[in-house]
């Protein structure tokens, strides 16, 4: 036993060596392989990556004497830098495991491969998910946050033609300091919050009203009404939105109908104020069925005896609604209401598909009257290539939405059963 442990120190230098000495060949070879690959491929890649993320490149785009373009692509370098840091952290983790494991005594019993896999089952099972999480969520988030501290933007700082530089908090200062940015930010922010509240509240109450009326005693063939009212939920959202865009368009059928009645055509999507109302109406059509479906099950779960005892006390229908139904429904749906608020806050598709942020607002920078923060970011990114400002606004959205989502989550069932805090 002791005799075998004396090789453990070898693991500090050659990963997996102690394991091989102990006779744990598979583990040992795997660890050795990690070290070999790190030395051969890892170190050059990491060195370049770390240099890249610090400097963001040094060679400006030019043609060398042979006429070949030579340049450092700042954004690729930044990405390589982040990937390097993530991989280095993973390798350090494996290294620490390697050393700790070297000092452990060999497993006494011979265990089969099946048992071995089963014992480490949770790590094996989670690996694909964790990798996907690292590369498709964590990495992009780090990248986006970092961009906020650079000058990555059109027209003077777009790779590969130009280099990108670190600028510290300059973008934040500009967003809050420069009048045109500041005005756009506050205007768009106020509309985003108003929109999120209106959109959530209207669809909530219409959904509740539908559920109450359909489920009320006097109504026959409840199933038919319920099916009709759920239809908008089942129609693919993007399609409904595009249909609405056409319905409300200038020459569309709604205006035709108004004209037919001898009324004036209305700029449903072109008047700044009316366009906002139209959006709320359309969202109601799209969102109320979801709430109705929810309410129906919640309403049936309200204890009957509450209503019966209030009947005895001679409560009116309205009083019952006000003091029993509403509080019960609100209590049950509060988390969903809040997440619906967060959803509408970032409801990009609706804005994009229906108005595309229009009509244009000359006082705003890159935003229209109905643009919400997220669609403004989209325009800055894809149309204007102002990546740096888009990232700053992204961080702001995150700071605003994070507490809301965190609050909802801490109240949800699956969270409460964990004692995380």
């Amino acid at each position, binding site marked *: 036993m002791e005799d075998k442990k004396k090789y453990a120190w070898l693991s500090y230098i050659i990963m997996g060596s102690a394991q091989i000495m102990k006779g744990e060949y598979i583990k040992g070879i795997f660890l050795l392989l990690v070290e070999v690959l790190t030395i051969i491929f890892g170190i050059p890649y990491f060195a370049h990556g770390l240099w890249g993320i610090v400097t963001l490149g040094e060679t400006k785009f030019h043609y060398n004497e042979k006429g070949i373009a030579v340049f450092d692509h700042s954004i690729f370098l930044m*990405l390589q830098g982040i990937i390097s840091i993530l991989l280095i952290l993973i390798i350090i983790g494996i290294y620490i495991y390697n050393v700790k494991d070297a000092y452990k005594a060999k497993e006494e019993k011979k265990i089969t491969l099946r048992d071995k896999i*089963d014992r480490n089952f949770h790590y094996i099972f989670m690996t694909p*998910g964790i990798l996907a999480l690292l590369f498709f969520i964590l990495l*992009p988030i780090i*990248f986006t946050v970092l961009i906020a501290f650079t000058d990555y933007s059109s027209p003077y700082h777009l790779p590969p033609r130009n280099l990108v530089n670190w600028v510290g908090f300059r973008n934040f200062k500009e967003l809050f300091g420069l009048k045109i940015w500041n005005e756009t930010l506050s205007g768009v922010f106020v509309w985003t919050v108003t929109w999120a509240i209106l959109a959530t509240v209207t669809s909530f109450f219409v959904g509740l009203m539908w559920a109450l009326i359909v489920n009320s005693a006097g109504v026959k063939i409840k199933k038919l009404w319920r099916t009709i009212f759920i239809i908008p939920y089942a129609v*693919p959202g993007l399609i409904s939105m595009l249909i609405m865009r056409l319905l409300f368009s200038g020459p569309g059928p709604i205006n035709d109908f108004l004209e037919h009645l001898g009324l004036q055509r209305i700029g449903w999507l072109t008047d700044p104020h009316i366009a906002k109302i139209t959006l709320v109406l359309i969202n109601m059509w799209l969102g109320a069925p979801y709430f109705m479906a929810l309410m129906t099950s919640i309403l049936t779960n309200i204890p009957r005896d509450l209503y019966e005892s209030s009947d005895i006390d001679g409560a009116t229908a309205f009083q019952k609604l006000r003091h029993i139904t509403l509080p019960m429904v609100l*209590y049950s749906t509060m988390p969903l209401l809040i997440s619906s608020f967060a959803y509408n806050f970032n409801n990009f*598709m609706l804005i994009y598909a229906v108005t595309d942020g229009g009509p244009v607002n000359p006082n705003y920078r890159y935003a229209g009257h109905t643009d919400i923060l997220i669609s403004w970011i989209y325009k800055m990114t894809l149309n204007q290539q102002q990546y740096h400002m888009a990232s700053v606004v992204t961080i702001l959205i995150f700071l605003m939405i994070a507490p809301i989502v965190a609050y909802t*989550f801490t*109240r949800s069932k699956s969270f409460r059963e964990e004692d995380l805090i």
Partner: protein
Amino acid sequence: MKGTPTPVPEIKFVKPKKKLTPKAIALKVLVYTFLITNTIFILFPILWIIGSSLNPGDSLYSSSMIPKNPTFIHYKELFTKTDYPIWYKNTLKVAFLNMIFSTILTTFNAYVFSRFRFKGRKAGLVTILVLQVFPSFLTLTAIYTLLMQLNLLNTHIGLVLFYSGAQIPANTWLIKGYFDQIPKSLDEAARVDGATNFTTFTKIIMPLAVPIIVFLALTSFIGPWMDFIFQSLVLRTADKKTLAMGLMEMVTGQTNTKFTLFAAGAILVAVPITILYAFLQKYIVEGLSSGAVKS
């Protein structure tokens, strides 16, 4: 007072017959008027698009809801004059792959977080929670650059990898919550019988979690039909295009003369999905309401 039991008041179970008072009739009329007007508002856009798809001609201006000479020509044109079949095939492919990838990744993670206690578990759960807050939509530029580096731009697999990765945080919590409700004694019984963790997962947990897994599979299948942003960011060439991209172009394109064609295309997308929803309604309501506070 002490010894004598208080008489229990008799409860009458027979409901008094309701008389149709004028007030009750007025209420009934009101309720049904409400239901019918709402039905009109709900169905109008849908009937309008169906009517439009049957209109001859192709402009928004001249089409009427009840066409005088209905025609199926636009449905035929979709298949002969546009790339619609390719879009449909591509969308089905992305949707199907996303469904498989997302379901596997998320149920695996949720199972581990629900059933195992290991170092870093809590940290992992909190990290996922924080990541979930950051709308993945906002990392457009990063995703684009990443896919470019991985040579996955203009491929469907790049899109699927991103979709299935991005849904992990939110759905892991949802599914884990459901798994938590399945009694642990069932797993233990299976372990005693010599089942490995993997067989416990496939034979015990999965069958009992069918409702939530159906919900997860369905939402990840539907997702790609609706997303337009990432698809237009990642996919470049005509042979890779999807339905969302194609339909969007028909409506927002500069030369907007394909309106009736759009209507037909939209219906061919909406009908199968609506039917799917109708069949799986039970699971959807369960999945949606699992976020509500249970009393």
